[in-house]
């Protein structure tokens, strides 16, 4: 049977190094299978997060040959096997152990987002067209690969000011819910740092669900913020009426 070498990060918050493991390669095998082989036969304490192994839960994120990916959807036969395949933990989050990182920050950000609230007196009739429009955002599996690759988080570590692509997708899903009555534009502008995004589209590139994060979520949200806060006519109108912005 063919073999491959996996070069896997072993270590914790204090540091560590990569270790090479030889694994047999079966047809159709994915990187997560190789990691399981290592756990089962070579290094029983290798820490890896995973759940469904079917690309539906978004648990097994890592950086394979330098690219943020779901290891359950990364086929070994798509990677060059003459050289070691490197598997490193997501860089944007604090390391816990081996491939497991501390992603709890994401859950704290999520708490800031006001949930769905139906408009008053709304009739529960929705057209399929409206459902289709927001589907894209709602299929996010929270793998946090977009958070990992986003330079605002990865290079500049703006976690206190910036929510990251995942949560712009989530807000897009709420804002474009046909019956939602809230306005989250102020939150996006003031607390979630939407303005930090300079649309490099790295998030879109790594999304395993192929959500067009930048084009379909972030840019429309940016437009919404602009309409709300920077539209000259609206601003003028507000000055005359003495209105405050929505939060």
């Amino acid at each position, binding site marked *: 049977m063919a073999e491959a070498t996996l070069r896997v990060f072993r270590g914790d918050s204090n540091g560590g190094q990569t270790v090479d493991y030889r694994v047999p390669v079966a047809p159709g095998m994915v990187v997560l299978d190789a990691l399981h082989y290592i756990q089962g*036969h070579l290094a029983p304490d290798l820490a890896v997060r995973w759940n469904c192994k079917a690309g539906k*839960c978004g648990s097994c994120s890592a950086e394979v040959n330098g690219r943020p990916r779901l290891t359950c959807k990364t086929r070994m036969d798509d990677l060059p096997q003459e050289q070691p395949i490197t598997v490193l933990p997501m860089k944007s989050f604090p390391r816990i152990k081996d491939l497991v990182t501390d992603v709890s920050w994401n859950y704290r950000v999520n*708490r800031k987002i006001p949930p769905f609230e139906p408009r008053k007196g709304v009739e529960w*009739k929705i057209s399929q067209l409206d459902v289709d429009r927001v589907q894209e955002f709602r299929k996010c599996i929270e793998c946090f690969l977009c958070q990992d690759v986003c330079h605002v988080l990865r290079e500049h570590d703006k976690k206190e000011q910036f929510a990251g692509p995942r949560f712009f997708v989530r807000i897009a899903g709420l804002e474009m819910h046909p019956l939602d009555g809230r306005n989250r534009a102020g939150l996006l502008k003031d607390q979630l740092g939407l303005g930090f995004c300079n649309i490099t589209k790295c998030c879109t590139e790594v999304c395993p669900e192929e959500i067009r994060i930048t084009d379909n979520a972030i840019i429309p949200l940016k437009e919404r913020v602009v309409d709300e806060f920077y539209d000259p006519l609206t601003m003028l109108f507000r000055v005359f009426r003495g209105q405050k912005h929505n939060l």
Partner: protein
Amino acid sequence: MTTSYETREHDVLIIGAGGAGLRAAIEGLEQGASVGVVCKSLLGKAHTVMAEGGIAAAMANVDAADNWKTHFRDTMRGGKLLNNWRMAQLHAQEAPDRVRELEQWGALFDRTEDGNILQRAFGGHTFKRLCHVGDRTGLEMIRTLQDRGVQRGIDVYMECSVTRLLTDNGRIAGALAYWRETGRFIVFKAKSIVIATGGIGKAWRITSNSWEYTGDGMALAYEAGAELMDMEFVQFHPTGMVWPPGVQGILVTEAVRGEGGILRNKAGERFMEKYDPKRMELSTRDVVARSIYTEVKEGRGTEHGGAYLDISHKPAEYVKKKLPSMYHQFKELADVDITKGPMEVGPTCHYMMGGIRVDAETAQSTLPGLFAAGEAAAGLHGSNRLGGNSLSDLLVFGRRAGLAAAEHAKRASAPSIDDVQIEKAEKELLAPFSNQGTESPYAVHRDLQEVMQNLVGIYRTQEDLEEALAELEKLKTRAAKANVEGSRLFNPGWHLFYDLKSMLVVSEAVTLSALARTESRGAHSRIDYPNLDPVWEKKNNIIVREGGQMKRRESPVAEMPADLKQILAQD
């Protein structure tokens, strides 16, 4: 050896953060209880996320003739009448409200022309009944519940495994758990505990289940003295992936058949004509799984030992829209374009009908203060579950469990925590670090999966089951001796050591019950007893721990009231 631990206190502690656990948590909060949710994974990764096809609820949006009575009848017939009829009734009656409520909390479902929730056909359901959104209904459901729960103020303890329920004079007092990240212990004091830990599929080699499905909740309840029921009924979903090897067992949603998918054997024959000419591909899961198994066994299987499932006669755009994740799954993992050609599929261990014995109204187990809902509980599905009845089960009985647990907590006095129980449990957990020898928990797990796959599978015989019991004894001895390398810091080998203990408990319970039931009913098929036996229609197998030993006994099925009997008799 350290025995230090932190302590948290809640009125209601919920173990498991899938659909049932989260729905129970939301209801507990509504009732004014302080609620904690403990889960082995990160929030939002529970098995519910993988549910694809939909939620069964007789809303009659597509087929106006549908109503709770028909749903009740379908559920009872699907379960071959072994279901707890009161649970089946409550489930059918309350499911539509639970779906509407989910929608009011922000879930979006596919729609009918006139803007209502769209419903699709599914195996064993008389009418189009499954509310769905493409083939990712579970994800929509879990996100909705997760966000609702978090916003309402549940405390979530993520990546935390409960290893022991603590009792105080025969009632629930709390639980001991450890943080997976650090390996440190945490003690929860609680007046009520709801078990919502899902199933046991990881004891089989070919399964659609994730690593979490190791039967912990059932084992915890059993160890604490609660009764388990119907443990012989393990559902093998007819359609899992069979090729390539790494993806073997991954679920292929029944929605493929719901949307018109056709099953064929190697010779191109539509073999369901032989096994269930009336319902064909939309027969119940037990029947379809056995049919595929038989075709393969008799030499009519595909290249990789499965059957062909074909949806490519439908327009490509339709397939991509209604089954998007199946389209991607096959394209990326198996190099198959399902809009152009057939999938190869075969049975995969999928769902546990049995579990913790509960009261229909309150979801309380036989141990006061201990509740159970969802897959971890027994009763609703009898000997075979219909597709789509699981998500509705989670909502209906999750809510009921949360409600009753909160009420119980209001009435109950504060239990006292027994340090002796905690110390004993801690010692057991840390034992593998000082075990000598070379036994690996991974090796024991692999061998357990072979035993269950080969001897306690779709078709069973007395000989196989007896052999399985003997093998399980050996595995128990090996598991106890297994040693763990490394530290307590996020150590999967150590985590598996504990999960293995749970899997061995439930595996033994399944095998004992399967051996006793000398008939074939629903998902339990005995080659040596191929027919339904009316005597066994009136009995449930009960598993209970007595004097440190696993004991099986039988309990009579409660008599169904006349009005329900009448509904059941109608066509």
